[in-house]
């Protein structure tokens, strides 16, 4: 057990330089020397990260720690100042089919004139290709994905008429439609209702059972141990990364959050570590 933890730790912490190409090919995501800067101000600095396959990985850190930037840089959405990112051993441009992306819900205008099904069908556009319209088979497929997140009854609903949680589930269904092996999710739990939070957890478990890897930007420290196997503690650089059991310690959190880890979140953290707390029973962000 200890050896296993040690091995996990080795594979997911700063050993990226020593990876052989063969090892790299088996890693869903390997990041090496990644530096991202906006206007000369670095946001991510010398990030080395190896994400193991078939795990649920939380990326946590204070506001402005570069959590979303990490995902966007991995997807090539923002220019990298330096560094190399590989998805199963290849650059992202060659592996797009293997990657699903759930952006932050606030990143789009939900007043856009489309319904839930149209949005999910966008996940199939890559497969449909240029000029060809969305066919009936694609619609059926999109509906199946909506079903998986419990949103099939809302397929024809205009997206502005959905609640925040329902919108988040539509975004998840769109990523599912991509049928990827590695999923990046940017704050899927932010501001969602209890039903959605449960739906997302169930979905994450399903994806894990199917051998998929999910990298999830997460803001709620107390749920990290119950929802995730691995955690990446990020604050411009990777403070620590590895299995939750070994890495998610108060000491490491203090290193990550510094003075920002307030008394309240320390209390919450203690609460989440309480062994009397049955796992998976907590709903919502409420306490």
């Amino acid at each position, binding site marked *: 057990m200890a050896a296993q933890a040690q091995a996990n730790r080795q594979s997911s912490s700063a050993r990226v330089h020593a990876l052989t190409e063969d090892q790299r090919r088996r890693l869903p995501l390997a990041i090496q020397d990644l530096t991202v800067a906006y206007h000369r101000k670095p946001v991510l600095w010398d990030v080395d990260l190896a994400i193991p396959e078939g795990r649920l990985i939380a990326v946590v850190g204070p506001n402005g720690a570069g959590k979303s930037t990490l995902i*966007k840089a991995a*997807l*090539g*959405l923002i220019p990298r100042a330096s560094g190399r990112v590989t998805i199963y051993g290849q650059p992202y*441009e060659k592996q*797009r089919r293997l*990657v699903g*992306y759930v*952006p932050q819900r606030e*990143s*789009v*205008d939900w007043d*856009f*004139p*489309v*319904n839930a099904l*149209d*949005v999910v069908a*966008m996940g199939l*556009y*890559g497969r*449909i290709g*240029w*000029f*060809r*319209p*969305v066919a009936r088979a694609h619609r059926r497929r999109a509906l199946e994905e909506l079903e998986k997140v419990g949103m099939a009854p809302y397929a024809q609903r*205009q997206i502005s008429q959905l*609640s*925040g*949680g329902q919108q988040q589930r539509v975004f998840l269904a*769109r990523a599912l439609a*991509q049928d990827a092996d590695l999923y990046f999710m940017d704050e899927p739990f932010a*501001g969602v*209702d*209890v*039903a959605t939070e*449960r739906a997302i957890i169930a979905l994450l478990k399903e994806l894990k059972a199917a051998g998929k890897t999910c990298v999830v930007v997460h803001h709620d420290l107390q749920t990290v141990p119950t929802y995730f196997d691995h955690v990446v503690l990020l604050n411009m650089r990777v403070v620590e990364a590895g299995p939750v059991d070994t890495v998610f310690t108060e000491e490491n959190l203090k290193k990550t959050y510094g003075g920002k880890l307030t008394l309240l979140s320390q209390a919450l953290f203690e609460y989440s570590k309480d062994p009397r707390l049955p796992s998976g029973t907590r*709903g*919502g*962000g*409420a306490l």
Partner: protein
Amino acid sequence: MSPRLLILTPLGLLLWGAFDPSWVAAAGLGEHTLAWPSSEELLRVLTLRDYNTRVVIVGTTLLGLAAGLVGTFLLLRKRALLSDTLSHASLPGIALAFILLTALGAEGKNLLALIGGAAFFCILGTGAVIVIQRYSRLKDDAALGIVLSVFFGLGIALMGIATRMGSGNAAGLSSFIYGKTASMLFADAVLIAVVALLAAICAVLFFKEFALLCFDADYAASQGWPVTGLDFLMMTLVVVVTVIGLQAVGLILVVALLIIPPAAARFWTYSLKHMLWISGLFGALSGLFGAGISALMANLPAGAVIVLTASLLFGVSLVFGSTRGLARRGVERLRLSRRIRHENLLREIYEMMEVCGLSPEDAELDCALPQVTMDMLLSRRSWSHGQLRRALARGMAAGLLASDGRNWELTAAGLEEARRIVRKHRLWETYLIEHADVAPGHVDWGADEIEHVLDADLVAALEKRLPAEVLQQMPASPHHIEPVQGEAA
């Protein structure tokens, strides 16, 4: 009205109007005393009998169609104002092309050369906007404002030089500022028609790609779509529509043709496909009427009439639009307040019965329930006499209330309905008390069943947390209910 019907009806009217001479003749009757065109003239223009007019009208109509289609994506990409900057930035291009041609001894008003110059300066203007945005800390609106005014100023200066050039005829150049179909040559009209048609086809062809780009550009990029290329293509279409629209609409007003039709179309539909076609139709109608009316009345610039037609369509859409129109929203608001009053009424009667005991036998002596009077109800809520009377009448019509003219009581169906409403209300109230700090945004009073919004486990938990004295599956109110005062009849 369904969007499809909406598209077809005006088209039908148009065809009917164009081919039924009696109607057109009747419209023109007795107007000879005014400056109106004669009925023969009207007929000739509307039925497109005059070949030259026909080509100009067809060209302008296609221009409107293309602008409506391209403008839809422009609006949804939130770049509407960029098109205004573009059109103003084209002026120096027009003037410069004219000056160069005249200096070279050629005919200055070659449309192809003029719109070539315009397009070049459009692209230059766009580049200037992008440079300012990227390398200064100015916001978008400032960048657009700077480029618009600087380029337009330069254009006015160059126009001054152009009109002072001895040779060449610069008189027609002003039509590019205000728009004038009358000065349009046959070849110009054909050119406009062909290019507009191509732009329209392009906009339809790239429907799926543009939709993805407008909705979620980052996601499109993550999927490998060439976002920069698509953006470039879209802006190219905007530039094309703008420069071919310059002569018909004028550079000050051409932006209206790109923005107003899609803005109006949004009031009719929640579907992008329908919005695209309605916008195209509105644009085409604006072009058709603008060019037609301008052909009849030489003093009316086509640009102005086109914009006014588009504005009229916008005004109608704003008020009567079937999904977002003010009338529809007003009706919905009225319905909601009626429904709230209805639910309040049933809840009020139920809660009055509840404090007295639900059946007459249980009632304490000073409670005259289950019958209530209007005075009792009026004293408990802020509704007006009329509102309450109408709510009572609607309750009776629905078979939920029975009355002898002075007193009202719940029927069996009414009791059932009241119980459902009170249960829902109390669960929401408890939810607010328990969870308001987390998620007040999830409260949805309009939802018929709380279970539709919150999951079943949570509803069960809420029911458990309600105070113990459960009355026939009814959660007790979490707040104190005022006892009925001894004011019964």
